[in-house]
């Protein structure tokens, strides 16, 4: 594949006054590709998302290279970045309630994006807005467009957010936990929609979540993050069917899904002992070693890099023949 990547991140660090939330992250999302960035709270996944959008909280700084659309986003000015947001790269946030302006009609908010980046008139933009809302399976779009955010449901709001993100056919959509705040029964609808809409527009998707099943359903490749680094990287099927890093393995094992419940109440989940280390007290070497069942001296002393053969940053990778999820 020679098509330019939707985004290419090289050795990204996100730091605050000596604290590093992200420590040397490299990955590539090909044009039209779908990648999942999975991790627990404190893994640095959300900081990565904010760094990619140039929306880091005050005091935090991104270092490294973020290549997108032929430019390095890190060197761009705030003004250049904001001109880009919504046009070549856009974001869907976790909480649709706080991402919409409460005192403006939702239709106008979508139309704003179209007008700002599409260079079309008010009337034309409204027409496109209604089309877009129809594509999002929103009921009675003309009427809904005149509603204020508080008048519509959470699922509808998130669909409005997706409509805004997709309005200008961006090359890349970054979705940060887009369904966590929604009711379980509407999560799937929203995911289905996000999946179909990105595919239609050939937009690349970077899905950031702690939810492994969501990644399994939505993405082609996955990067598993722990303590600010990628610990395993590869095609979703390969990584989830045959995890080589003990953290990935542990995450998969601790999922209470219908696959591994004996459903008579006698089964136990295997859990990862301990907790995610806080930023100021990261363990030496491989940050996972205090919780790892097979850690040795080398794990405590040296930080492993991603191994090309296994796709895992681990000194003692899980043997290739041990599937975590029965297939």
């Amino acid at each position, binding site marked *: 594949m020679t098509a330019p990547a939707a985004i290419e991140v090289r050795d990204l660090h996100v730091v605050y006054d000596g604290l590093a939330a992200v420590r040397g992250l490299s990955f590539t999302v090909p044009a039209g590709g779908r990648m999942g960035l999975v991790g627990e709270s404190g893994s640095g996944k959300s900081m990565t998302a904010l760094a990619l959008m140039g929306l880091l909280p005050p005091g935090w700084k991104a270092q490294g290279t973020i290549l997108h659309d032929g430019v390095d986003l890190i060197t761009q000015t705030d003004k250049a970045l904001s001109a880009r947001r919504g046009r070549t790269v856009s974001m869907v946030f976790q909480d649709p309630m706080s991402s919409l302006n409460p005192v403006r009609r939702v239709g106008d908010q979508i139309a704003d994006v179209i007008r700002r980046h599409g260079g079309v008139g008010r009337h034309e933009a409204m027409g496109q807005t209604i089309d877009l809302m129809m594509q999002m399976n929103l009921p009675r779009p003309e009427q809904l467009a005149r509603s204020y955010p508080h008048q519509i449901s959470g699922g509808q709001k998130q669909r409005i957010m997706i409509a805004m993100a997709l309005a200008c056919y961006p090359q890349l959509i970054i979705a940060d936990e887009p369904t966590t705040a929604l009711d379980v029964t509407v999560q*799937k609808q929203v995911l289905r929609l996000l999946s179909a809409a990105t595919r239609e527009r050939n937009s690349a998707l970077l899905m950031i979540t702690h939810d492994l*099943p969501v990644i399994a359903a*939505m993405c082609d490749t996955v990067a598993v993050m722990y303590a600010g680094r990628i610990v395993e990287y590869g095609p979703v099927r390969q990584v989830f069917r045959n995890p080589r890093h003990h953290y990935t393995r542990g995450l998969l094992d*601790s999922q*209470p899904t219908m696959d591994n419940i004996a*459903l008579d109440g006698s089964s*136990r989940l295997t*859990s990862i002992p301990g*907790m995610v280390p806080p930023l100021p007290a990261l363990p030496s070497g491989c940050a996972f070693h205090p919780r790892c069942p097979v850690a040795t001296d080398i794990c405590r002393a040296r930080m492993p890099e991603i191994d090309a053969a296994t796709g895992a940053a681990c000194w003692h990778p899980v043997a290739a023949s041990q599937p975590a999820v029965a297939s």
Partner: protein
Amino acid sequence: MTAMTIERRPLLALRDVTQSYQLPRTSLFGPRSSFTVLDGIDFDVCAGEAVGLVGESGAGKTTLTRILTGMERPQRGQVEFDGQDLWAAGAAERTRFRRSVQMVLQNPRSSLDPRMRIGTALLEPLRSLRIEGNHTRRIHEVLDQVGLDRSALGRFPHEFSGGQLQRIAIARALMPNPRVLVADEPVSALDVSIQAQVLNLLKDLVQDLQLGLVFIAHDLSVVAYTTSRVSVIAAGRIVEVGRPVELFTRPAAPATRNLVDAVLTVESGLAGTAL
């Protein structure tokens, strides 16, 4: 295995519980309309049994929790503890209920006073429920049960991670030696790798202490893992009761079907059948 017992003697039970709230007047002289939150609910839990309650938000889970824990008095129907009607019983019985039915809340960070040391927080239930005895020994006992170190006692909540705080909250609920634990979404605020720890702990407690556990959640897969019997609530009514495996394989009510459909698993995702 335990589902086959001959005689069920519920520890805590709701019988035909109905609750409605009055809505604010829409016009000055119009009649006040009311909104029925719970409608003829039957629900019970026995000692050593874990039962689940699932439903979408707005189905009435919160109100049911409040009635189960005696925070709210239902308009109609009975709350029975150990065969006694809670709201018809005297003050002594009410006190026994307060000691015997404890609650674990969703967000461990907000369920502990940030300015109170863990040791003090654990003593709170004993002090307010006026429980006599060797408090220090009780604290150590409970810390062992939830797998926490004694060094936790002198520290403040902000020094702990979410998973540890949820253990502390469970420890606090266990302090008065309750017979029923009502857990309202106890893992939904926790990280995936921590959720399993807390779920396993709850399962162990049910076994070891013969506790009755009421596990309330919106995610059927988590509830199914923890409990042996699940009630599905929708629009204020219990629409289906069954063993988790039955609900998963043969959901009868539409609400159950919705919840089963909503469950995403890694395997169905990889197979491309999830969405």
